[in-house]
């Protein structure tokens, strides 16, 4: 089998060539999944309102770009504006608290008006996937159907290349994307206040519930405030994903989702 070609089929003599070393324990536990992990060497991207890298809870940024909308076109430009709301810093701080040694990147899609929102999200996500980040946190969605197919293709590309997309579920009675796609990890809030508490939902499309209530987060101009919303639950799962990937590099999004499932607070693997 030519290793450069995609594996469209598996011939009998090629079975040995794709042997996967068995690394999985008999029972997946949190200790196996994240025990001692720090997020080291994992790149986490925050697709949001920008990130204030100097905020003490964020603790530094590896890179920052902004997607701008000019003359009906999107462009990626270096970003020195920081955070135009505070929310991106909040997400970055949550990820940092869980995975202290991960590398954080900011892709700012806010601040350039509302008109091109769908295009901005699309271009920002495309950029994040091109960069090959391990985890992308998206606490946002679009209701525009014309973007659904394009976002779906991007989410699949990310899934196949091994970039984990974590998106906050929309707790409103509307159709929105990309959180509903099965190639994305979608997250809603539970009512607990423990950042290490997460639940697998047996009734998707929301797949996990993580902490999203009364979270003390980084905000604008170095401040911290207390917030609630699914948009704060998603970065908890993004941070946990960074931990798993730092301890078990090379896991596919499918495998990572399985680890999160097996170690959830309601599936028996949470010790």
């Amino acid at each position, binding site marked *: 089998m030519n290793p450069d070609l995609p594996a469209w089929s598996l011939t009998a003599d090629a079975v040995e060539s794709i042997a996967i070393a068995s690394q999985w324990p008999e029972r997946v536990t949190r200790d196996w999944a994240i025990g001692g992990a720090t997020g080291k060497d994992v790149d986490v991207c925050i697709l*949001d*309102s920008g990130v204030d890298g100097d905020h003490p809870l964020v603790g530094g940024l590896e890179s920052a770009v902004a997607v701008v909308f000019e003359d009906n076109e999107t462009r990626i430009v270096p970003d020195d504006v920081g955070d*135009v*709301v*505070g*929310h991106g810093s909040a997400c970055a701080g949550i990820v940092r608290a869980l995975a202290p040694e991960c590398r954080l990147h900011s892709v700012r*899609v*806010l*601040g*350039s*008006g*509302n*008109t091109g*929102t769908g295009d901005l999200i699309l271009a920002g996500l495309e950029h994040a996937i091109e960069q090959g980040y391990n985890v992308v946190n998206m*606490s*946002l*969605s*679009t*209701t*525009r*159907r014309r973007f659904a197919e394009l976002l779906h293709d991007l989410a699949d590309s990310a899934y196949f290349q091994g970039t984990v997309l974590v998106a*906050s579920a*929309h*707790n*409103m*009675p*509307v159709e*929105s994307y990309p959180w509903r796609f099965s190639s994305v990890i979608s997250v809603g*809030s539970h*009512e607990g206040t423990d950042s290490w508490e997460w639940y697998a939902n047996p009734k998707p499309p929301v797949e996990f519930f993580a902490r*999203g*209530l*009364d979270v003390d987060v980084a*905000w*604008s*101009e170095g*401040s*911290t*405030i*207390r*917030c*609630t*919303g*699914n*948009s704060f639950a998603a970065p908890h799962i993004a941070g946990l994903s960074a931990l798993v990937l730092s301890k078990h590099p090379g896991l596919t999004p499918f495998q990572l989702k399985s680890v999160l499932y097996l170690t959830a607070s309601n599936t028996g693997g949470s010790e």
Partner: protein
Amino acid sequence: MTEDNSYREAVAAGMLASEESHRALLQSIVDVARAIFGAKASSIFLLDTATDELVFEAVSGEGEGDLVGMRIPSSTGIAGWVLVTGQPIVIDDLQRDPRFARQAAERTGYVPKGLMAVPLVNGETTLGVLQVLDRSQGRAFSLGEIDLLILFANQAAIGLDLLQTARRARAVLEGGDGRGALVARLAELLERADDDGRGAQLLTALEAVLRRDARG
């Protein structure tokens, strides 16, 4: 939409909605939102798609009367974030957000401690943002309260969408100068102000003449 369809819609809408009913609905939304949560204030921003700005359209409680008409950028600040991302958010100690506190102080002198903000979404369209400021602290906050606000916002968005369609249609009706617009205006007048039926008699006679000419 074809011109004919626009006029047809305009006639229907002209009978439905007036500027006053639009204002009344907006005010009712903020009044009810405030009452549901025992809040000090509630406000609505609507998106002005022509200028891509958020416009303060209605306020109940603190700041009432001062803010209406104020415009802010559509994708910065907390309201902008909610509009663009479509995600509801609750903030409990907003006074610690220096940027927000500064702007609120400049605008009204009223800096709320807490804020709940949800997008007003109907189908694919995000119309604006509904905010509830300083809700009652008498009970512990739960996710159920956000769900309640979302349900209410959804109902409000449906009503608003209907009235905004009517507003646009009315603009077509009032702004059109062709024959279609004239007929649409006459139809509306007939519905609203033809109490003794003389207008209808006149138009029926006109129709008969035109039909005869068309045959002839």
